[in-house]
């Protein structure tokens, strides 16, 4: 930026411009890193507390002032906590629900977003506006009738109530995904579609071979949001799943917490085990995630 401004501006008296700039910059750097470190302490401290508690014997946990390093490392908390309840089964249940939901949401939402952004049909914008208006509806309004509906269908204690809505563009919350994908689709040049149509392609082909491959960042964002959403969901499983063998991780952990209220080592180990997979997933996808959120320009 200085390169552009320099030619028509007189040099500052006596001081070379680079020298004038460098000092505050270095202080700025130091301040920036200080702020980042200071900010991440309260963010990370609960995690440190979780992990150290998960690896401690109860006797060490209840001392004051608190100790931060477990001695000895009580690894058995993990194995014992994870065997007192079938967390492996809960893990598989949660994963199945999450994968089915992600597939349904991504597919039906992107198809709808394609229709709302790149195909012209009468009433399109009215329909889209109507769908969008649903965003304001609190979930509490649809909660009771939806529950009654699944009950009438005899679908309680199955994964249907937790997965089927995602195949209808995620129902309720899915509108946000349609909106996000539509915003992204609008940035892809329309000439690509027109060329394909001239070659005799169908809208489905244009969607599948042109628009989708170009939309990876947006799709990754929707995938991560949906996955985290289903993985973390509590109210849904609480309402619809009854037998323990169908429990998700959240339900398992909640019942675990009411059962082992005093076994903090177990509780913390179980919590850590529930948190770990989602952090691992995010760790591998975070670059695409932040990039995608930026590109899709969620704001507005």
């Amino acid at each position, binding site marked *: 930026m200085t390169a552009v401004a320099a030619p028509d501006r007189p040099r500052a008296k006596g001081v070379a411009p680079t020298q004038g700039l460098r000092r505050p910059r270095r202080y700025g750097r130091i301040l920036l890193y200080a702020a980042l470190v200071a900010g991440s302490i309260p963010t990370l401290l609960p995690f440190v507390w979780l992990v150290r508690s998960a690896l401690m014997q109860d006797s060490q946990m209840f001392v004051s002032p608190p100790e931060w390093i477990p001695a000895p490392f009580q690894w058995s908390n993990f194995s014992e906590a994870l065997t007192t309840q079938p967390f492996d089964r809960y893990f598989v249940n949660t994963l199945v629900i999450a994968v089915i939901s992600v597939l349904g949401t991504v597919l039906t939402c992107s198809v709808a977003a394609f229709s709302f952004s790149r195909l012209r049909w009468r009433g399109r914008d009215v329909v889209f506006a109507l769908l969008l208006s649903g965003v304001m509806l609190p*979930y509490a309004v649809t909660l*009771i009738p939806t529950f009654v509906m699944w009950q009438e269908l005899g679908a309680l204690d199955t994964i249907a109530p937790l997965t089927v809505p995602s195949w209808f563009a995620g129902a309720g919350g899915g509108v946000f995904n349609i909106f996000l994908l539509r915003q992204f689709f609008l940035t892809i040049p329309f000439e690509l579609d027109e060329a394909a149509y001239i070659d005799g392609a169908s809208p489905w082909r244009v969607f599948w071979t042109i628009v989708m491959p170009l939309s990876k960042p947006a799709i990754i964002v929707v995938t991560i949001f949906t996955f985290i959403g289903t993985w*973390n969901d*509590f109210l849904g499983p609480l309402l619809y799943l009854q037998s323990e063998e169908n429990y998700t991780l959240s339900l398992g952990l909640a019942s675990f917490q009411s059962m082992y209220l005093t076994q903090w080592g177990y509780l913390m180990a179980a919590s850590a085990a529930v*948190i770990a997979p989602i952090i691992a997933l995010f760790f591998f996808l975070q670059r695409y995630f*932040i990039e995608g959120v930026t590109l899709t320009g*969620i704001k*507005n």
Partner: protein
Amino acid sequence: MRRLETRWGILMALPAILGFLIFTIGPMAASAFFSLTDWTIGASPSFVGLDNYTAMVGDELFWASLTTTTYYTLGSVPLVLIVSFAVAMLLNQKARGLAVWRTIFYLPTLVPAIANVVLWIWIFNPDFGLLNSLLRQGGLPASQWIYAESTAVPSLIIMSTWGFGNTMVIFLAGLQGVPRHLYEAVSIDGGGPFRRFWHVTLPMMTPTIFYNLVVGVVGTFQVFNQAYVMTEGGPNHATLFYVYYLFRKAFTESEMGYASALAWTLFMIIMVVTFLMFRNARRWVYYEMAGAR
């Protein structure tokens, strides 16, 4: 082509349209009807007109839950907005290891709600929890946190601030959309960081701030998990959040009609609050394209 487009257009939007009818419009209408009935599951609903709504006026717990929820919203939303904006500003700088920093600040948002609640019960533990341990080491008085009436909601507000990640990500996206040339203009005029922030960043970010404000308010009006798992609405109804009260009416006391009326009242409250926010927004939200549209 026109015909083809219409056919495919409707076909491709069909799952979304059906989903809207089955999972939004249908239940909405049903819920409106239920709210006018006296109904427990198993029996058939009997029509009672507006009785459920008039009953709410005299329902102490309804008012308690509304007050608690409003208190929580007023405390949590501004705090989360300020913290997430500040962190987004930090993460918008060219720091080394930016991806790592971003992950660190987003981490709490990833924690499953129930794991989060379990973790924070332990953090709030008055005898051996993290917070009181730190306070004691600093020679400060300890607190009862979620176990005392007066500190229960403030404790949950602190806890909510920990999960500022989603708001932060949206601020970050907004910050990256602020045109560079505006900053350059301020610099050329001799303005420092403060002026850049005050005359460029803040006005250009008002739409994003507004978006996060609306989403935040609508979201905090619907808290549930903390009350259900952590405090069960206590101590002495101090954390009886609105949706938790509704849930209890519906699925514990099986008063489906009354619970539906509660749901519709919540909807109306949210609509009014949102409407007021939008009206007020005209005064402070700056849209660059306002003239063009």
